[in-house]
């Protein structure tokens, strides 16, 4: 235990403080699932910090924050669709396609080898064009789903494969280099550079993420549109019979989802610098996992922006934790040794975490439902007994 000397009282107090500062307001706001996941997240972070001091080192924190931000942007977007009871499998391909389009339009032009780079147009053309394409794809998918009454799973599965193929065609099976364009700064740079991290301590993707959070939270929780999104997910027929423009609202959620994929795509393009057809593969699944971990129900009607943020944090902290986790011990000869997790375990651990999380949630749900049935039964019995008494009492009186 001498090995964890870096843990000081102040660390425990700090973690405890963060835990309370987050969990108490969530409990008060009735966000039960979100609170549970938040507590898990803080415990996870604390455990990782205990095992490896560097987990909270400056560079790791900045890097993890950047990763969380880039995932969170489109996890929030896809949540709009999931809350209406739909699904968007195409979002990973949209992330990839946006990046490829930017690389193609605005990447550096190499006169001797045009196929390795882009066309060299301004980013002011490249980024808006790529985002417009993303939004248009969302619109088309949304219209197919709502107007032709197709299943969202099928439409976006088709979109996922088709768009992946489009990316592949544009890059001609190879990679496109962005080259020396200012966009590279976007993902790798940040505000407030210090000596330790000359690229800035507040990464730009975090700023974009905060912007997305603010807009999404306002739209989802404080506008009529957001109310309709929940109503459609809760009871589609009721929404229709309440005169809600169900099809228009639903279509818009697919546009929002695709657009958020586009924004994330810009960040990933900047972060990676070299766009190949591989970028964004399986990202839709990470986004769905982040949303579900954060309390969004695939049945629709449930979920909050706060929850999706927490879910995104958990996903990326686990991924980072697999690299950071270490166990220092002394072997029989008294030599200090380091045990680390095998990187190949990443998917096993993420998969297991998702399963355990939904299992726990369901167990709690069943338990609560049982308690409520018992209570309702007792009330009904009491009411029936009370109803049975008065006529006799009246006769006596």
């Amino acid at each position, binding site marked *: 235990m001498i090995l964890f000397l870096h843990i000081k009282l102040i660390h425990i107090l700090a973690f405890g403080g963060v835990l309370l500062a987050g969990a108490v307001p969530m409990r008060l706001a009735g966000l039960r699932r979100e609170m549970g996941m938040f507590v898990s997240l803080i415990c996870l972070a604390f455990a990782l910090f205990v095992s490896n001091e560097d987990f909270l080192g400056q560079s790791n924190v900045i890097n993890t924050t950047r990763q969380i931000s880039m995932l969170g942007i489109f996890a929030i977007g896809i949540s709009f669709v999931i809350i209406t009871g739909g699904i968007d499998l195409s979002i990973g391909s949209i992330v990839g396609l946006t990046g490829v389009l930017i690389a193609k339009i605005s990447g550096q032009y190499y006169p001797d080898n045009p196929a390795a780079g882009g066309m060299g147009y301004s980013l002011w053309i490249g980024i808006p064009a790529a985002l417009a394409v993303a939004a248009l794809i969302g619109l088309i998918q949304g219209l197919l789903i709502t107007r032709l009454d197709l299943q969202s799973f099928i439409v976006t599965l088709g979109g996922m494969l088709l768009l992946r193929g489009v990316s592949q065609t544009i890059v001609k099976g190879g990679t496109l280099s962005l080259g020396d364009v200012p966009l590279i700064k976007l993902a790798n740079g940040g505000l407030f550079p210090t000596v330790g991290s000359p690229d800035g301590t507040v990464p730009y993707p975090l700023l974009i993420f905060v912007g997305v959070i603010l807009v999404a939270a306002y739209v989802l929780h404080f506008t*009529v549109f957001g109310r309709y999104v929940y109503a459609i*997910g809760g009871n589609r027929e*009721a929404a229709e019979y309440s005169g809600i423009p169900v099809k228009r609202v639903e279509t818009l959620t697919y546009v929002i989802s695709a657009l958020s994929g586009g924004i994330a795509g810009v960040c990933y393009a900047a972060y990676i610098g070299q766009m190949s057809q591989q970028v964004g593969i399986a990202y839709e699944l990470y986004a769905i996992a982040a949303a579900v971990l954060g309390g969004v129900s695939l049945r629709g009607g449930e979920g909050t922006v706060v929850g999706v943020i927490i879910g995104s944090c958990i996903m990326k902290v686990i991924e980072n934790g697999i690299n950071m986790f270490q166990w220092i011990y002394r072997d029989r000869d008294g030599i200090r040794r380091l045990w680390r997790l095998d990187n190949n375990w990443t998917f096993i651990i993420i998969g297991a975490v998702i399963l355990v999380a939904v299992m726990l949630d369901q167990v709690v749900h069943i338990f609560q439902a049982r308690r409520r049935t018992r209570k309702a039964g007792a009330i*009904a019995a009491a009411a029936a007994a009370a109803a049975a008494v008065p006529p006799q009492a009246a006769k006596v009186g």
Partner: protein
Amino acid sequence: MNATSSQPPLLEMRGITKRFPGVVALQDVQLRLHKGEVLALMGENGAGKSTLMKILGGAYQPDGGQILIQGVPVTFNSVRDAKRACIALIHQELMLAPNLDVAGNIFLGNERKSMGLLSPLTRRQMNKAATALLRRVGLTCPPTTPVARLTVGEMQMVEIAKALALEARIIIMDEPTSSLTAGESQKLFQIIRQLRAEGMAIVYISHRMEEVLALSDRITILRDGRYVGDLERAQATHEKIVSMMVGRELSANYFPAKPAKPPTEPVLVVDNLLVPGAPSPVSFTAHRGEILGFAGLVGAGRTELMQAIFGVTPALGGTMLLDGLPFAPQNTREAIARGVYLAPEDRKRHGLVLPMTIAQNTSLPDVRNYASLGFLNRSKEREVARHEVQRFRVKTPSIEVKAVNLSGGNQQKVVLGKWLAMRPRILILDEPTRGIDVGAKAEIYRHMAELAAQGITILMVSSEMEEVIGMSDRVVVMQERRVRGILERAELSAHRIGQLMTGHADREALAV
């Protein structure tokens, strides 16, 4: 009684016709409604009441006819159009979003939209307005209560509050009391009378004669999608309404003759069976070759009792004896193994696999016996299916037709055939003729009588009084998940059953 004849009625529907693929749901139907009037709309299942009201509510568009509001013709292309004309439709299966709170539901689709969809939600104003509306319908819960926590009765009141929030002039209620307790119904009637006094026009759809006679000012009767006639409250009697509703088809030979049966040995003895969710245990005995009817209102716990006997939701306590041997099915397979079969109320969801053929549906519960060496013996399957199709005279070109393409009556016959092929001891029929047309009904009744004569015990759950009395040898009456009485053949009367199944509180509520 409320409007002078010179004034056009608040609402008039003329010559409304609506066709669905293969059926004419409504043919030249008319309806008039005045301000401050409660109009009861009556008719048997499938008479077209709900379709007519969905047209009025904008959910369906008619193929012919005219709707006039205060003498002005209008067209409703959507629910929103009807709402704009201040017509609110309250569905039988309540249309609330369980994940939203009460205020959110009351104003759903009716929020203040200064900036289109992106308008901010005015929660404080909505809660305030909702509190006032809730008080009008006699609810005391705060407007921020999640709807999922309300009882069905409270949800009904929220639906009415929602209609009031629209400033509706016409409220349509489709069987509002079908899942309410006696006390809740009483509260609802008070509110309906209060709304009528305020000048609201109400269309009230119900199967319950007592309610209709107590509440309504006028009664419009439909039969088989056609307009039969209007009755003023003063002329309306129970018998008159029934005869108009069922027409001449319900003659003496509609139900097969019930021969006097000698007493037989008990087959199923249910002793203090504790059904999940029921406040007290249930006991009854069913005899060989008997049709034992189960009467009660929707939600009286009959379906739940049958599900316990069939092992869908195993009983929590008590005992059952089948042919003198203990019978406690923990799942449906154990019940089926003992020859206890259920033809469920919702045959499309629980009775048949719709995309499968008649032959495949017939062999489904017993498919293991159709297999040799793991291969399905299709010729045996076809042979059995053909036999059952002939026995029940299912109207179908072939046994390879998918169940989804059959009419309701023929689907029910396939369900019966599927179980008959397995030689039942006890056949549980939950609402055996729901949604089935008159001709097919009579056929189903004839088959039921034949099966009983062969010694099969039938437990029949039915919400149609005529059916209960016409078919049952004895009747178990349930109310609020308890058995209120078991009536012998000699005691069977609509009056007696009605008394038991509504309880006394309901009758007091209706005695104005």
